[in-house]
């Protein structure tokens, strides 16, 4: 049985979620609790906060402190060509069909610091589609969006990214895409010339355009079932007929109400296509 001290902590987090919504407008009520509890506990541990009151005080009096908290509670771990087989499949199964459109629109939802976006842009470039593609890169977190725009990633990650790039069917010299400088690799800003960066909250904002492809990877795992369903419906509204949806390796449409209207183009890589 759950310990009462744990139940009390969880109760306090519920209250906190309500207060954050009132105070800052961010709605975490639909998020997966296991992760929220863990992140809040972790944040408190790192900041040396011993109880909820010690967290609440700075959180509601100092919006910078809240920013830091927000950064930490919404996980934004990412990498380039994460799950290379996903990108290989995009390249082989999706881009050839997108190329039949004169003008392509893509939504990268929950793009974090941009590693996924630059991976996608490199793919589009190599398939000759980048010039006629517009990508909307969105995230709840403005700070990661600013970083995404820069396209500066730690040089220490480059060996792993290079390997992943080739595993994803890369055809060029990967080093041609970036310049190294003081421990950083700055990716060619031409890659994101047609990208619009913009804050969008999947939990509360609505559909804002129609897309041929939506990528939303490793974001839904942080949401509870209901919020997942809301977001999937939002994507459904935002996809053209025969549009594609790419989810994270461990995310699925299977449990969703929209699943009958989709085909799994690549089941292992979680790429779906809207039927009509």
């Amino acid at each position, binding site marked *: 049985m759950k*310990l009462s001290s744990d139940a009390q902590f969880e109760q306090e987090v519920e209250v906190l979620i309500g207060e954050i919504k009132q105070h800052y407008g961010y709605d975490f009520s639909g998020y*997966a609790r*296991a*992760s929220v509890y863990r992140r809040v506990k972790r944040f408190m541990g790192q900041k040396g906060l011993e109880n909820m009151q010690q967290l609440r005080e700075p959180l509601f009096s100092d919006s910078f402190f809240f920013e830091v908290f927000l950064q930490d509670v919404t996980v934004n*771990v990412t990498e380039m060509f994460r799950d290379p087989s996903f990108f290989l499949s995009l390249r082989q199964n999706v881009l050839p069909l997108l190329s039949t459109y004169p003008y392509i629109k893509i939504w990268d939802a929950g793009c974090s610091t941009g590693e996924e976006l630059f991976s996608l842009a490199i793919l589009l470039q190599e398939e000759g589609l980048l010039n006629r593609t517009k990508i909307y890169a969105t995230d709840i977190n403005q700070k990661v969006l600013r970083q995404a725009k820069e396209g500066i990633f730690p040089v220490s990650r480059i060996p792993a990214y290079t390997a992943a790039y080739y595993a994803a069917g890369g055809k060029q010299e990967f080093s041609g895409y970036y310049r190294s400088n003081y421990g950083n690799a700055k990716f060619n800003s031409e890659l994101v010339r047609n990208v619009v960066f913009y804050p969008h909250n999947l939990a509360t904002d609505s559909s804002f355009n129609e897309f041929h492809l939506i990528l939303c990877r490793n974001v839904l*795992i942080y949401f509870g079932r209901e919020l997942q369903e809301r977001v999937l419906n939002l994507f459904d509204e935002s996809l053209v007929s025969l549009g594609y949806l790419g989810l994270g*390796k*461990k995310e699925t449409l299977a*449990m969703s109400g929209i699943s009958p209207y989709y085909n799994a183009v690549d089941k292992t890589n979680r790429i779906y296509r809207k039927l009509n």
Partner: protein
Amino acid sequence: MQRVPELVVIGGSWGGIQAALQILKGLPPNYSLPIVLVLHRLRDQEGNLQEIFERKTRLTTVEIEDKQQLVPGMLYLAPPNYHVLLENDRTFALDDSELENYSRPSIDVTFTSAADVYGDQVAGIILSGASSDGSSGLKYIFEKGGTALVQQPQEAEIDTMPLAAIRATPGCRIMQLIDIQEFLLSLHVN
């Protein structure tokens, strides 16, 4: 009085696959508790572990999907590159946050989350491995009144992980694999 466990969580790394197979191969297909197995894997290694456990045990084995329900008699494998958390409604929640103890999945993360949900009704088991991941998770389970078992270090292929767990939780029970299997069988109700 210690309450009977309702969940078994097992962690291991180097040598952990063999050790886990030794324990689990003796369990009946209708084993009355869910079992969650967190093994460190090579990064991006694809899921043939599931096949191995499916073939060499009598338990139905699945690689965990997000939001999947925990059901008795199932063996759940932590997928590569995700931490496995548990929700109060006894479903899984996956998480791709930072590595813990250089690992994702991390044993500590799952053990801690299991104890948060199941309180004292968790049995945590640490097997062979070349890492100290799992030791603070096991301690956490033990402190909440759960059952803490560690594979006897002499018997482990690599004793680093068992030794670290024993150091962190001196009150744990140190057992040979055969006795851990016996213990699990004693929890089974027909």
